[in-house]
């Protein structure tokens, strides 16, 4: 890109259109365009593309913000927000590692689905696939030293607002102090193409228990849901980690941790007692729902 070269190259042509060319090069570009109909046509098309993008998408700038995109909703001036996240490294590496672990463990946890929850045709029930997803998520994130949770317990309000938005119903974090577990935090996860929430608890010995929550799929009649409303079922045990799961109203829950069956069932009971589950509104668009409640 020397200044006395008469020709302008491709990069110059783009920079000319985008207004990033210094004045002297700009003059050279204009002289060039005047002499070259082909380049002039290209410059004109490039500019038209930029304009078309604005015509197409600028209206988004003027749409009212849904409540979940307003800063004020998450900022509580009186609550300190300093240093909640020590994860200086981007989430990339942790996620990559977690993803690989998920792959490695997926086969190991396939056992969850083999108990009694397959239909004769071998189709996995919703409950079974749900339990398997919950077990995988537990395996991945309880051993993640850097980013076990996306939001820590010190940002519980933000975490629960976020999960509630994405799951389309109010999500609460039950207190498990009675069994010696404190909330560490939680995260949002994909689960069979839907958002799921994972709340992580920790005991005094450092053992981690996760509560996994997802909206239930609307099931066509006759299909295999595998749920027994409100009944806690024992999913099995793998490597000292047990799993129980149940469904109440529109939500499915799984509780996973290094506990024996009786301890886990008792903890599940504690969870059930605390959760006042509002009925889920089927197919209610989240944005509109939250918009109405906005200030």
């Amino acid at each position, binding site marked *: 890109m020397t200044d006395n070269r008469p020709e302008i190259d491709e990069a110059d042509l783009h920079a000319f259109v985008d207004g990033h060319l210094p004045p002297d090069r700009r003059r050279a570009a204009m002289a060039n365009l005047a002499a070259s109909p082909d380049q002039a046509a290209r410059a004109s098309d490039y500019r038209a593309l930029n304009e078309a993008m604005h015509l197409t998408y600028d209206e988004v*700038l003027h749409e009212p913000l849904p409540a979940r995109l307003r800063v004020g909703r998450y900022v509580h001036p009186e609550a300190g927000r300093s240093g909640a996240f020590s994860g200086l490294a981007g989430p990339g590496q942790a996620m990559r590692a977690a993803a690989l672990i998920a792959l490695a463990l997926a086969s190991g946890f396939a056992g969850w689905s083999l108990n009694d929850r397959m239909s004769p045709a071998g189709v996995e029930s919703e409950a079974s696939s749900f339990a398997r997803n919950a077990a995988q998520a537990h395996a991945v994130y309880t051993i993640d030293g850097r980013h076990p949770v996306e939001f820590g317990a010190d940002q519980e309000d933000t975490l629960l607002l976020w999960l509630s938005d994405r799951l389309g119903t109010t999500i609460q974090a039950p207190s498990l102090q009675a069994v010696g577990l404190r909330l560490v935090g939680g995260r949002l996860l994909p689960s069979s193409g839907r958002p799921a929430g994972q709340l992580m608890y920790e005991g005094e010995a450092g053992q981690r228990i996760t509560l996994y929550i997802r909206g239930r799929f609307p099931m066509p009649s006759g299909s295999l849901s595998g749920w027994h409303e409100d009944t806690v079922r024992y999913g099995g045990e793998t490597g000292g980690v047990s799993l129980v799961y149940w469904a109440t109203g529109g939500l499915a829950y799984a509780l996973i941790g290094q506990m024996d069956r009786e301890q886990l069932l008792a903890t599940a009971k504690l969870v059930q007692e605390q959760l006042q589950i509002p009925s889920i509104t089927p197919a209610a668009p989240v944005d509109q729902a939250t918009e109405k409640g906005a200030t």
Partner: protein
Amino acid sequence: MDRADGSVVTDAEELITQQIPKLRRYARALLGDPARADDLVQETLLRALSRQHMWKPGTNMRAWMFTILHNIHVNNQRRRFVRGEFQDPLEDQPEQGTPSTQEHSLEIRDLAKALKTLPEAQRQVLLLVGLEGMDYKQVADVLEVPVGTVMSRLHRGREALRRLLSYERNVRPAERTTKLRMVP
């Protein structure tokens, strides 16, 4: 500059707030689906708020937040891929309707459609340059690629759209005439 008192925090929050509409516009154009786009912006917002102490006052908040958005997007794609849930959402999403009364509706619909045919890496560059007005160095920083890569993606993307849209321009009028005749 680096005061730890409330005023700096408030400044950061103010600057974060200002970026939301732009992030939303970009995410909408990138993903096509408004709900998924807002999911991405919300996650970006939450992460920016929780890490605002890492933002250096005086530096470009827009670039910082677009970088966060881009990182989250990359991770989301990777997660979906690993979980076997990956499908390009733009492949199976219904068209976002544009008001048919608008004079430019045909061209606008064509542009949104044409953008979707581009590889995402090119679409990102075209949108950051054309919609956000970022210079090429800023785009390179946000996407974490060399400037030369930005330039070649920009060129390939624009040329592809140019071919596509000029093809559409030549074909569409005939279609339109046919349709008009069929309307009683």
